[in-house]
Structure formats: structure tokens, C-alpha cells
């Protein structure tokens, strides 16, 4: 049966595309997965792969033409079939045809089967749920997001997979659990048509934008390689943008003397010489300082219709930004206020190892009320960071460096100095409130005993 070929979303954000080139001519047969045409999207030129075997019966969108997602760009079917019936339906004035696609179009493509199932008669073998089967619409190129099972949607959100980029293997192209799991595992399970197109051979999907070099053009000419963004990268991009563009950020900087903190770290070494991480010490001190500044441990909650609340939390759950080969994640140590440094350190190192290995479950990386990010290991002296919701503040920690310091007695000494930058959401934390917290935290870092006071 002849079917409409729709313009589909070849990237998560694509709303329309330009038909660059048909790779199949009218009357020519094609195999499922072969490239029907090239489409220029908002991001890249993408291959539109055939959803099934067939013949291109009619081209409706000429090369160079633009079409919105859901528009009909051609008619496909079996050899010898005529596109005329569908063409008549698509012609202007043919009652309600239009060119927008939707589930109803797919259902209409199988009217005879659907009708026989609808007229259920009480004769064994022709009706009744046990003997007959509900009729699924045929698998066809469809417009808009693919249908998906509820579980697939939940899993996709949990695993950071953009479900709109997947092609489902269930009935009617439904995206089901196995499709999401395959995508999350980086497998080839059901990628959308064209997604694999522009990635050069040898480049691993999800290996990060910096990991594969762009092949050089002749004599210094600029060449580019477009890598569609999906999965974890897309989630990170969206969340950071949401945070940065919705929370008015401001930054407070302060330099502290890290000598006592580093001495404390040495003092806490266990008999085998294992010392707690600086980040575990900072998490403990931050929790102690936050106890006196509930606003810095709070969060902004938009409730729609112009309403909002500030959520104050009884517990300090500290997230630590951890770099991964293909992104970053913030494992969360719960209730740092009531845990000792060694426990925080043990939980933190377990979570970091898990984040870099098998991966964290959502409850292990969401819900931080305060976040610490430390680029001191890269020699970065100071930097600003983007707040990690639902927290309202993030502490960016620089390297502890030997610096000359003017002492009160007029002499100069060399001390370990560390720069802190506190990023705050001004909707929740006013400047003076953030400054008071940072003052108290700095005091505790310079004299950790104050955390006990």
C-alpha cells in the first residue's frame, strides 16, 4: 500500500529542513536503512534513512525545497503501485487532507483491517481479545516524536537519553525499554535515521566533542565536523542552560589561608597514611557553615502562574562536580552536617568511583542542596561555576598555591593560599547573605576548629 513519506525530525531540535538531495529517484527501489535523501537541518546535513523496503513512487518536495517536520515530501510503496489516490488526498481541497502527519494518518492507512476489527461479532475466531489481536498501525515514517512506552520515557529521563532521537523497535515504531537501554549503553539500538550519518568512521559516539580530530582540509582551509548532540550531553547542556538563564548568578570571591586545612588533612591520615580528600574536608566545613545560613541551603521553586516559593531544607546534601570522559556529574553525599569527615570522605570516594565506573543511579546524583567544584588539580587559581539546581549556591575552589603574604607585623611570609568563588542565585541569596556565609566558611577553613564552635 502506498504511504506518505513525511519530513521527520532528524535532530532533537529540528522543526523544518531543506531537502538537499534525493539519493533515490522516482520509481527506484530502496532497502530499509538505505539513504533516501539528504536533509539540511538547523545543525547539519543529515541522511534520511528508509524506514522499510520499498519504491519511491513520487517526489513531492524538490531539491532545495523546505518542509516542516510532518510535511509530506514524497510517496513510497511497492513496485507497480500508484500514488494517485494519495496524491488526490493531498491535493488542495480534498476534504481535510492537508499535509500534516499524525497518528490518525497512520491509522487511516489501514482502514480495511481496522474496520473488520471494529465490527466485532460474537463468532469465535473473528472477535474477542483472546483470538484476535488489536490492530496496530503499520510501521511508517511518522511525524513528531515517536510513540514510546511510559517506562521508556521514565528510563530515558533517568538515563539522560533524549527519547526523541530514538527509533523504536516496538509496534508502530514505539520506543520501548530495550531501545532506551541500548541507546544508554551506547549501542546501535534504534538510532534515528540519519543520526549516525555525519559521524566519521572511527569516532565513538559520546566520546565528547574534543576527542576526535577534524580531518584537515587542503592548505589550511577551514573544515568542520558536525556532531549531533544527544543523550547525556544534551541533558547536561539543557540543565546548565536552564540554571544559568533562569537563576540570576552573582559571584563572591575570597582568598583563604589553607595552611591549617592542609595540616588537618595530614593529621587525619589513617595508620596506612590514607588522608581524606580536600573536598571531603570542604564538604564538612561547608555543612557546618551552612547550619548558620539556611538561605544558602535553600532553593527557588517556580510554581507556575507567576507564583514561587523558597524551599528551606533541614539537611545539607552536598554535591561534588566530577568530570567524566563524556560530561560531568555531581554525586551527592547526604546529610553532611551529621556525618564525620571520614564517613563523608568514604561515601564521596565510593560515589566518585561509581560515577566513573558503572554509573550512578538518579538518587545518587540529584537533589544536592549545595555543590562544590574544584579545579585546583588542574592548577586553576580561580573560576566561576554555574549553580547546580535544586541548590542555590556553588563553591568553586581553586588550587592552594604558595604566595607571599603581608603579615600584621609588617613582614612577608609564604603561605598556602586558596581562592574561593561562591556563585549564588540572587532570587534566594542576597549579596550580604552570601558574603556572611562565605566569611564564616573562610573562617572555618582558616581555623577548622571553628566548625566545632
Amino acid at each position, binding site marked *: 500500500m502506498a504511504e506518505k513519506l513525511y519530513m521527520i525530525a532528524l535532530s532533537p531540535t529540528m522543526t523544518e529542513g531543506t531537502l538537499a538531495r534525493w539519493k533515490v529517484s522516482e520509481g527506484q527501489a530502496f532497502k530499509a536503512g538505505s539513504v533516501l535523501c539528504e536533509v539540511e537541518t538547523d545543525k547539519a546535513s543529515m541522511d534520511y534513512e528508509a524506514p522499510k523496503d520499498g519504491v519511491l513512487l513520487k517526489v513531492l518536495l524538490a531539491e532545495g525545497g523546505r518542509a516542516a517536520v510532518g510535511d509530506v515530501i514524497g510517496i513510497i510503496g511497492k513496485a507497480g503501485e500508484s500514488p494517485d489516490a494519495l496524491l488526490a488526498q493531498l491535493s488542495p481541497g480534498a476534504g481535510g487532507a492537508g499535509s500534516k502527519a499524525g497518528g490518525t494518518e497512520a491509522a487511516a492507512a489501514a482502514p480495511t483491517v481496522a474496520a473488520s476489527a471494529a465490527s466485532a461479532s*460474537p463468532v*469465535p475466531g473473528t472477535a474477542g481479545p483472546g*483470538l484476535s489481536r488489536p490492530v496496530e498501525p503499520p510501521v511508517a515514517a511518522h511525524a513528531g516524536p515517536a510513540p514510546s512506552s511510559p517506562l521508556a520515557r521514565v528510563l530515558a529521563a533517568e538515563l539522560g537519553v533524549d527519547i526523541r532521537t530514538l527509533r523504536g523497535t516496538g509496534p508502530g515504531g514505539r520506543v*520501548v*525499554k530495550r531501545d532506551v537501554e541500548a541507546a544508554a549503553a551506547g549501542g546501535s539500538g534504534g538510532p534515528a535515521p540519519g543520526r549516525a550519518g555525519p559521524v566519521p568512521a572511527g569516532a565513538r559516539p559520546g566520546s565528547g566533542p574534543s576527542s576526535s580530530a577534524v580531518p584537515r582540509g587542503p592548505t589550511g582551509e577551514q573544515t568542520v565536523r558536525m556532531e549531533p548532540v544527544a543523550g547525556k550531553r544534551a541533558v547536561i547542556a539543557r540543565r546548565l542552560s536552564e540554571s544559568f538563564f533562569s537563576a540570576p548568578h552573582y559571584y563572591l570571591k575570597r582568598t583563604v589561608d589553607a595552611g591549617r586545612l592542609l595540616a588537618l588533612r595530614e593529621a587525619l591520615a589513617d595508620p596506612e597514611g590514607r588522608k581524606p580528600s580536600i573536598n571531603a574536608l570542604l564538604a564538612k566545613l561547608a555543612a557546618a557553615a551552612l547550619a548558620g545560613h539556611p538561605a544558602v541551603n535553600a532553593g527557588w521553586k517556580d510554581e507556575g502562574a507567576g507564583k514561587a516559593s523558597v524551599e528551606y531544607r533541614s539537611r545539607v546534601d552536598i554535591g561534588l562536580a566530577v568530570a567524566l570522559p563524556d560530561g560531568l556529574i555531581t554525586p551527592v553525599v547526604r546529610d553532611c552536617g551529621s556525618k564525620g569527615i571520614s564517613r563523608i570522605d568514604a561515601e564521596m570516594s565510593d560515589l566518585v568511583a561509581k560515577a566513573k565506573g558503572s554509573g550512578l543511579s538518579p538518587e545518587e546524583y540529584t537533589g544536592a542542596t549545595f555543590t562544590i567544584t574544584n579545579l585546583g588539580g588542574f592548577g586553576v587559581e580561580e573560576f566561576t561555576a554555574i549553580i547546580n539546581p535544586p541548590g542555590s549556591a556553588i563553591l568553586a575552589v581553586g588550587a592552594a598555591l604558595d604566595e607571599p603574604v603581608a603579615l600584621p607585623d609588617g613582614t612577608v611570609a609564604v603561605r598556602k593560599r586558596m581562592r574561593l568563588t561562591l556563585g549564588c542565585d540572587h532570587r534566594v541569596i542576597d549579596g550580604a547573605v552570601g558574603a556572611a556565609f562565605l566569611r564564616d566558611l573562610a573562617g572555618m577553613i582558616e581555623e577548622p576548629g571553628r566548625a566545632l564552635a
Partner: protein
Amino acid sequence: MAVLTYREALNRALDEELARDDRVLLMGEEVGEYDGAYKVSKGLLAKYGPNRVLDTPITELGFTGLGVGAAMAGLRPVVEWMTHNFALLALDQVVNEAAKMRYMSGGQFSVPIVFRGPNGPAEYLASQHSQALESYWAHVPGLKVVAPATPADAYGLLKSAIRDDDPVVMLEAEMMYGLKGEVPDGEFLVPIGKAEVRRPGSDVTLITYSKPLWTVLEAAEELARQGFSAEVLDLRTLRPLDEEAIYASVRKTNRCVVVTESWPQASVASHVAWLVSRNCFDRLDAPVELVSGEDVPMPYNHALELAAQPNVPKVVAAARRVLYAEG
């Protein structure tokens, strides 16, 4: 542990309860002199006498009403219906009297009564005597409904039903009376309202009750051969439903098939399917499937009669649909 038939297990439960509590009595067509149409009451008349084991006329509405009145007056009758098909005549007494008496008397009367007998198709009994009518009872607030599938559950649930202070409808099956199974020697009760996992699994939950359990267990075996791990949940009680057990299983497997020999529309199984769709929505990877008796009066022709009931291929096919493993 003794191996008893389903009928022997029921007989043992009746015997023990008649002995334990002299308010308990058994009444129904042929339960006395004839030892029961299916020999469930064998030997009880001889042991307990005609005041405790009563043969009744062939008047379902009449003797069911007699039982309800006796229960209101303080006795604990067990009313045997020769089959649930005949109990249709007694619907008014069960639905309008037994189920509502506690509510409408403001708690002045309770109706501690058990209605029991075989339900569902057997063989060669044609349309009027091959019906699975549990939905009629499970529909009604004020009733409890149990449907044991094993001799041990038949024993334990009948004893719980007799000791319950409210009306309980018990569904047995002609084809199960000869079914053998282990029954612990000591006295025990099976709580009303508790489902049982008959076979643990991880890929799909098959929910059923009563006789189809045995078909479903066979289907689970076949699915295992095909590489799928099916969990089989036996509801055992149809009202109140053990929703917790249902959700726990479906949330684990993400897929659900409900199997019943009753008709599909407005059935216990379609209600369970709705509950699952409603309460496990975000954990479902496929629409809930229903395998039911076909939506037709039971054909007399034996080949058609078998085709109209759930069977292993139908259950396996439904499971493969929710597993997206068709074809």
C-alpha cells in the same frame, strides 16, 4: 505432608469446622444422603447428623435465603450451590440481603455465611452450565470472594471463610475436584486477601486465579523454554484484591498479562488490568494484555469449547506481545 485431592481438602476443612464450632452447618442440594454432587461432603451427614448437614429442595433462592436468615440469627451456614450457574437464581439473596445486611442494619446484624460451589467451564456442559461467573460476585461491595487453585488453598481459604463474620463467596471448579496437591497435616488458615507468587520471574507478570493457574504455569514453563522469565501471581482472593502484590510484581517486570476463563467485559481481570494501567503506568513497557474466555456463549462442540477458553498458546502469545517478541 499428606497429598489430598481438592475435594478431600474441602471435606477435611468442613469436617474440622463442623467439629470445632457447633454453629457451623452445611446445606444444599444433595449434600447429605448423596454425599454431595461432587462428593465434597462425603461422610459428613453420617458424622454430624441431619441438623448439621441439610439436604434442601431444588430452590436456590429459597435455601440461600434460609442460610442468610440462619446466619443473621447466629448460625454459621455453609451453603453449597451445585454450581454457580444455578446460583444465578439466588442472586437477590446474596446481593441484596447478605451483602447489605451489616450496612443497612447499621451494624446490628452480620451475615457470617459461606456460599460455595464449582464455577467456570468443565467439559460438554454447553452454554448454560459452562460459565465463569465470578465477576457477578466480585462486583458487589459487602461480599468477599475467594478462588483457590490448589488443595491447600481450598482447605485454608474455606476455613478462613467459615470463620469470617461477613459473607464469603467461594469459587471452586469441577475440573479441579480431583486435582491432587500437598496439604500440611496440621491445621492452618489461608488469609483472605493475600495473593501468592507461584513462580518467580523477571520479564513478565502473568496474573490469574482459580483453574487457569495451571494453564498459566504451563505457559510460564513454555516461555522459559523460549528464554523468557515469567512471574506467575495467583490472586487467590478476588475481593478484596491484594493490590500490593500485583503492583510489586508488575513494577519489577514492567509487563503484565491477566488471564481469566471468564468473559472479557467488566470482568475481575479487566478490572485488574485497569488497576495495573492506572497504578503502574510509569513502570509499564507495554499495554497490559488480557487473555480471557472468548466473548461468546460456550459452544457445545468440543473443539470450539476448547478454543473458547484460555490455553497455553494464547497465554504465550500474549506474553510475547508485551515482551515485543512477536513472530
